[in-house]
């Protein structure tokens, strides 16, 4: 990657979505929505793996190219960068329950790249970022309501 393209790189995130044993219901909708995000330039998929953890905790990491019947997802194969290392697979799988299957994607937030690039050009440095869980918002709302009740 050149210096110019690095400067234009958007934030890179990962998500891991677990499907407990016997609870998956793949209709192709997830793949369709993921491809929609790619096709509209919202994100770029950097890496994609399917992880399985058996009842004894043994892991397997399956590449997109090794999966059967991936349908339209096959379009992503050529652009994957295999960023995840073996140790990443182990770290990610820590969150999985035995007997489950999980999909992992690493993706660049293309939608955020112009703003991030502008912030860097302005001398800004990212010092923190994160996601606010819905549970935290809910707890805050409930705490507000409790205060209002006490305050009468």
């Amino acid at each position, binding site marked *: 990657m050149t210096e110019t393209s690095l400067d234009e790189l958007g934030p890179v995130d990962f998500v891991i979505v677990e499907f407990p044993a016997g609870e998956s219901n793949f209709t192709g909708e997830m793949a369709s929505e993921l491809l929609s995000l790619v096709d509209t330039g919202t994100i770029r998929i950097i890496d994609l793996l399917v992880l399985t953890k058996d009842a004894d905790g043994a892991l397997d990491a399956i590449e997109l190219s090794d999966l059967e019947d991936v349908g339209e997802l096959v379009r992503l194969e050529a652009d994957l960068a295999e960023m995840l290392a073996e*140790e990443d697979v182990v770290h990610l799988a820590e969150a999985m329950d035995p007997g489950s299957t999980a999909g992992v994607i690493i993706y660049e937030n293309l939608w955020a790249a112009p703003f991030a690039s502008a912030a860097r050009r302005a001398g800004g440095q990212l010092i923190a970022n994160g996601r606010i869980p819905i549970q935290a918002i809910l707890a805050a709302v409930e705490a507000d309501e409790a205060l209002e009740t006490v305050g009468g």
Partner: protein
Amino acid sequence: MPVRAARVGRRGVIGAPVAKAAVVAKAVTPGPSPVAKAAVVTAAVTPGRGRRRF
């Protein structure tokens, strides 16, 4: 653990074991129905709500 050879022996990017995120469906029970709680959260992120009191 079987992984593609290209992934072996490389420095990782995740950094530390990942903890399972709380599941929203579990977090909103018991109490009012999940639908009712979802409405509360939606209201919380509606423009103009203004909960700050410094």
